């Protein structure tokens, strides 16, 4: 589904991603772990199409080149990014925002727009999924939301948008254990054979709730190790120290397969 080959991203003169390769198949959940500053979030935003990046290499989704597409076109193609820091938009209510977003991608895809009444049904199901109260729809997008509400709102948007590929950037950061449980349950409910996910996280904790099919370790702009979920457990015990400034072939790994 997603094919990333030799991806390089620089911001100004500073290289951030230095030749990243990744393939994500339909229905798979991949976790990307790594120390701060390794380029995890930059990778997420390179997928989403943020301005200001110097990009080299290849990103395709179902064979379609994403790199020349604007962010809104990528959303219509099926990419969704759960932001680490969801943006507050005062004065724009959540309901109107969500419906505009859904109808924008439907229009781009040549589908009929969804009316206000039918949309309410879609929104209600998404809200139930993340245990949001109804007044939430009528508040401004993320404005004055708690950290947990913002992250739940990201999952709610994902449920409404029904993407092919969801990239969740540090969705667990700033969540207490109850919020984490709600968010993870929402994500798990949205797993399916046609939907792939990339879960970016610093900590193994989230992966106790969202079991990944594959775990990748990103260090200094590259994926340096890949394996199954036991790789995450290894990182929990040993940290990233073994991957930083070491010859990777000598890193003390157990239970991981490259």
């Amino acid at each position, binding site marked *: 589904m997603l094919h990333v080959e030799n991806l390089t991203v620089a911001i100004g003169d500073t290289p951030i991603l230095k030749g990243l390769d990744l393939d994500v198949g339909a229905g798979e959940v991949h976790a990307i772990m790594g120390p701060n500053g390794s380029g995890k979030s930059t990778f997420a935003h390179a997928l989403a199409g943020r301005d200001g990046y110097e990009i080299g290499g290849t990103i395709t989704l179902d064979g379609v080149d994403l790199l020349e597409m604007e962010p809104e076109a990528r959303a219509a193609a099926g990419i969704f990014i759960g932001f680490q820091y969801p943006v*507050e938009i005062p004065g*724009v209510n959540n309901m109107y925002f969500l419906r505009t977003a859904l109808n924008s991608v439907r229009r781009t895809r040549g589908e009929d727009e969804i009316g206000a009444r039918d949309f309410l049904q879609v929104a209600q199901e998404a809200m139930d999924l993340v245990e949001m109260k109804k007044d939430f729809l009528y508040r401004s997008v993320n404005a004055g939301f708690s950290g947990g509400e913002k992250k739940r709102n990201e999952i709610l948007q994902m449920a409404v948008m029904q993407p092919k590929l969801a990239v969740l950037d540090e969705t667990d950061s700033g969540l207490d254990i109850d919020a984490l449980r709600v968010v993870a349950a929402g994500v798990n409910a949205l797993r399916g054979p046609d939907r792939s996910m990339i879960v970016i996280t610093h900590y193994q904790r989230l992966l106790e709730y969202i079991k990944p099919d594959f775990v990748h370790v990103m260090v200094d702009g590259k994926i340096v190790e890949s394996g199954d979920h036991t790789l995450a457990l290894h990182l929990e015990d040993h940290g990233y120290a073994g991957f930083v400034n070491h010859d990777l072939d000598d890193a003390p790994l157990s239970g991981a397969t490259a």
Partner: protein
Amino acid sequence: MSVATLASRTAALEQVGSLSLPTKRDEAWRYAPHKALGRLTFGPATAPDVVPADVAGQIPEIDGPRLVIVNGVVDRGRSRLDSLPAGVELAGLVDSSGDLAGALERQHEGAEDAFSVINRAYGTDGALLRIDGRPTEAIHIIDVAVPGDGQNASASRVIIEMAAGSSATVIETRIGSGDTFGGSNVRTEISLSDEANLEHIILQDLPSTHIHLGRVDVVQAAGSTLRARLFNLGSDYGRVAYNVHLAGEGAHANLSGLYFGVGQQTLDQQINVVHSAMNCTSRQTYRGVLDDASTGVWNGGVDVRRGADGTDSEQSNDNLLLSRQAEVNTMPRLEILADEVSCQHGATVGQLDEEALYYMRSRGIPQDEASRLLINGFADQVMDDLESEAVRTWISERLGRNDG
């Protein structure tokens, strides 16, 4: 017409001949187009032979009583003055009976200037609105400028007097016709008795070849409340000045406004609130959106006089610049001579939030629409103050919005 009024008008007429127009050195007129102001020609109010066809479509659809003034002369045909609600007296100034000297000769806190003298000299007609009651329908006063060959600018007056405990909504729409140079000079004088409550809305939407000079003077008695809403949208130079005097204890003035400039427009708001009684509150909340090469001016003052203890005032002016050529000049001013006062002010100038735009685009919303949503969201913080649905709809449509 009383002798005193005639005397005052005669004096004003005598002054007109020797008037010097404001210059760049006058702080309140610093950003005005001084040459263009000098090209405005005023004279005795004269209705046009024909009211052009483009006027009708510009008048907002608002039910209830209305008075239409064209080139400073009341147009009875276009007005709706029959079956006025109980407690409402609405008439042309020249038609009004009784002793008008008190209403016409009221002295105000704000200094007079060349254009207020011109208004007094030539603004012989206009609206007189007296309210002693609580009408539910909004009262609509429409001022239309139709530049003529003889003189290109008109002057008119609006006088609003609210009796104790009265409550009303008054909408003043200012529009114009055609694409030649001209304009209007409208002076509104408002007096609120004890516990009176007025929502006063100005919709300024003259053609882009016109100049609008609006001035509102308000005096408030104890416990009265003014909610003044300005939508300053039209004209090449669109100016509205407010001088609000909180003269009675516990009076409240809540002023807000939105200016939305495009092209070469300059939209100028000059606000001054005087606190001279104890325990009054005032709020100034103005927002500007400036596109193309437009200029916004917000000069907002609070003047807390000796003895006005317990004053509580807040001022804010937030601006959104949509283009590199757009400009805003924001000047909050504060002068405090009393004790135990709380006065806050703040001003911001920003651009569309790139991070918010990206966030919305990542959800599939195209760039143009994302910008529009952000601009509307910004403007809504003023629009939300409006209680009249009809006015909200009119402004939404005027700003090219389809979300009602």
